[in-house]
C-alpha cells in the first residue's frame, strides 16, 4: 500500500491541475515537461515558470523528442538547481538521469520527479501530421486496455520497466479503464508526500502493483521474447552483423542522443578514429578493399563495450537513425545478458555502482587463468 491522491478529473486535466497547483502554491518554481509547439503534433521539452503557460504543457504526450534524463543532466551538471523544479519524465528517462547522476553528471537534490506507469511512446517519425487527434485517441485506448500498439517504439513494446523507479509521484496510466473521469497519483517518497500535502484531490492509500500491472508485464515480456528470438535468428554472427550495419552512415547520431553516452569528447568522434591516407593505404594493403565511411562496426561494438551494461532501452538511438538500423534493439539485446551477469538494472538504485566502474575481488574466478 502506498499513499496516493485521487483527483476526479480525466488524467490529462488532473496532471495539469497538479502541476499548476504546485507552481501556484510556490512549492516549485518551474515545471519541466513537454510543450506543444504547433497544431500538427510537434512537441519539445520546456521549462515552465508561469502557471498560465501550463495550458500548453503536454505532460503525457506519447513522444520522446529527446531523452529528458540527458536534459536534466544539462540543467544540474554544476549542482542542484537553485529553486525546486518538478520534472515529468518517462520511467526510462528517470533511469537515464539516475545513471548520469551516478556518473556525477547531474544532481537530484532539488528536482521533484513525476512519472507514470508508462504506456510507451511512438517513434518520432510519425510525430507530425493531421492524424494526431486520432492517433492520441488510439494511444489512450490501447493504454486503457493494455494492448500493445504495434506502432510504438520497439523498445517500448518490450519494456518491462514501465513502473518507474525513483519517482516521487507516479501517475497511474497503464491499464486504468476509467482514466477519463478519475486519476490516481501515487506518492512514492517522503519528498513526494511533502510536495503533495495541499494539492487538489482526496488522500487515499492504494496498491500500485499487482493485478493489471502484472498482466501488462507478462504481455511485454512475451513481446520481448519474440523480438529477441527474431533478432537471434536474423542478426547473429559476423555476416549478419556486417549486413545489419552495412547502411550505417557513421553519423554517430545514435550515440549523440544516447543519455548514457555522456562523454564530452567521444573516442569515436576524435582524431584517433579519423582515417588518414596512411591508414587507408594500410587497410587496403591488408584487406584489398575499404568501406567508406570505415569503422562503423568498430564504433558500434566499441560503444556497446563501454555502455551497453547501462542501456536503459529508451529507444532514442533507433528513433534518430536515418537509415533505420534497429540500434536500440541490438543494444537492448546485448545489454540484457550483461545486466543479468551483474544483477544490474540501470537506474534502479542510486546506490548501485555502475558495473563497469567497480569490481569485487572474489568474482569471475574462472576468467583469467
Amino acid at each position, binding site marked *: 500500500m502506498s499513499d496516493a491522491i485521487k483527483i476526479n478529473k480525466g488524467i490529462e486535466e488532473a496532471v495539469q491541475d497538479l502541476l499548476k497547483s504546485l507552481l501556484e502554491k510556490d512549492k516549485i518554481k518551474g515545471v519541466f515537461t513537454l510543450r506543444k509547439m504547433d497544431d500538427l503534433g510537434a512537441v519539445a521539452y520546456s521549462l515552465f515558470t508561469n502557471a498560465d503557460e501550463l495550458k500548453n504543457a503536454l505532460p503525457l504526450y506519447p513522444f520522446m523528442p529527446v531523452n529528458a534524463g540527458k536534459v536534466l543532466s544539462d540543467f544540474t551538471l554544476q549542482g542542484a538547481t537553485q529553486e525546486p523544479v518538478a520534472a515529468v519524465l518517462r520511467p526510462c528517462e528517470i533511469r537515464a538521469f539516475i545513471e548520469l547522476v551516478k556518473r556525477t553528471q547531474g544532481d537530484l537534490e532539488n528536482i521533484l520527479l513525476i512519472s507514470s506507469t508508462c504506456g510507451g511512446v511512438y517513434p518520432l517519425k510519425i510525430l507530425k501530421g493531421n492524424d494526431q487527434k486520432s492517433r492520441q485517441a488510439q494511444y489512450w485506448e490501447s493504454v486503457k486496455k493494455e494492448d500493445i500498439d504495434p506502432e510504438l517504439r520497439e523498445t517500448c513494446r518490450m519494456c518491462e520497466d514501465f513502473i518507474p523507479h525513483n519517482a516521487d509521484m507516479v501517475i497511474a496510466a497503464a491499464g486504468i479503464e476509467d482514466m477519463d473521469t478519475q486519476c490516481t497519483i501515487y506518492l512514492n517518497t517522503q519528498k513526494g508526500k511533502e510536495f503533495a500535502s495541499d494539492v487538489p484531490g482526496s488522500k487515499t492509500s492504494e496498491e500500485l502493483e499487482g493485478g493489471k500491472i502484472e498482466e501488462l508485464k507478462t504481455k511485454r515480456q512475451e513481446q520481448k521474447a519474440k523480438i529477441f528470438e527474431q533478432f537471434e535468428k536474423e542478426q547473429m554472427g559476423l555476416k549478419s552483423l556486417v549486413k545489419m550495419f552495412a547502411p550505417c552512415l557513421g553519423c554517430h547520431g545514435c550515440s549523440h542522443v544516447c543519455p548514457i553516452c555522456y562523454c564530452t569528447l567521444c573516442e569515436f568522434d576524435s582524431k584517433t578514429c579519423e582515417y588518414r591516407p596512411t591508414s587507408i593505404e594500410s587497410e587496403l594493403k591488408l584487406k584489398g578493399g575499404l568501406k567508406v565511411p570505415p569503422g562503423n562496426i568498430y564504433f558500434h561494438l566499441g560503444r556497446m*563495450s563501454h555502455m551497453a551494461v547501462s542501456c536503459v532501452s529508451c529507444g532514442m538511438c533507433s528513433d534518430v537513425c536515418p537509415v533505420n538500423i534497429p540500434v536500440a534493439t541490438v543494444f537492448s*539485446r546485448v545489454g540484457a545478458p550483461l545486466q543479468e551477469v551483474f544483477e544490474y538494472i540501470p537506474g534502479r538504485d542510486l546506490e548501485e555502482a555502475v558495473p563497469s566502474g567497480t569490481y569485487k575481488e572474489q568474482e569471475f574466478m574462472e576468467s583469467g*587463468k
Partner: protein
Amino acid sequence: MNMNDTYMPTIIGFLCNWCSYTGADLAGTARMKIPASLRVVRVMCSGRIDPLFVLKGFLKGADGIMMMGCHPGDCHYQKGNYNARRRFVMLQNIFESLGLEKERIGLWWVSASEAPKYAQVTKEFAEKVKELGPNPLREEIFL
C-alpha cells in the same frame, strides 16, 4: 605442404609492464621458445586495456588476442587487474550475444617471475588459435 604447416596465427598480446611484460623478458633471456607470431604491446597495467584495443585488433583481423596482467591482489595499482577482468567478462558476453568468436580472446595472470608460465600459455593459445583457423574478419572489408 599442407596449409596447417604454413599458417601462423597472428596474435596480439597486451602485457602489463610490471608483471607479464617482465615475465616475457625473462622468458626471452632464458631463451624459452615463444610463438613467433605473437606481437606484444606493453601497457602500464592490465587496467589500461580498453576493450577498444581488443576490438580493434579483432576487427583488423588478428587471429587471437591475449590480455595479461598481474595476479589478482598483486596489481601495482591495486585494482587495475580487477577492472580488466570485468572488461574481459563484458567483452566475452557481448561476443556471445552477437555470435562472434569469443574463443579468440583470453585473459591470463602472469607474474614477473613466471617465465615458464608465459612460454606455456602463449604456446597453448597459439595452438588453440591455429585450430580455429584464420580470423574471418581478415577478409572482411565492410566493417
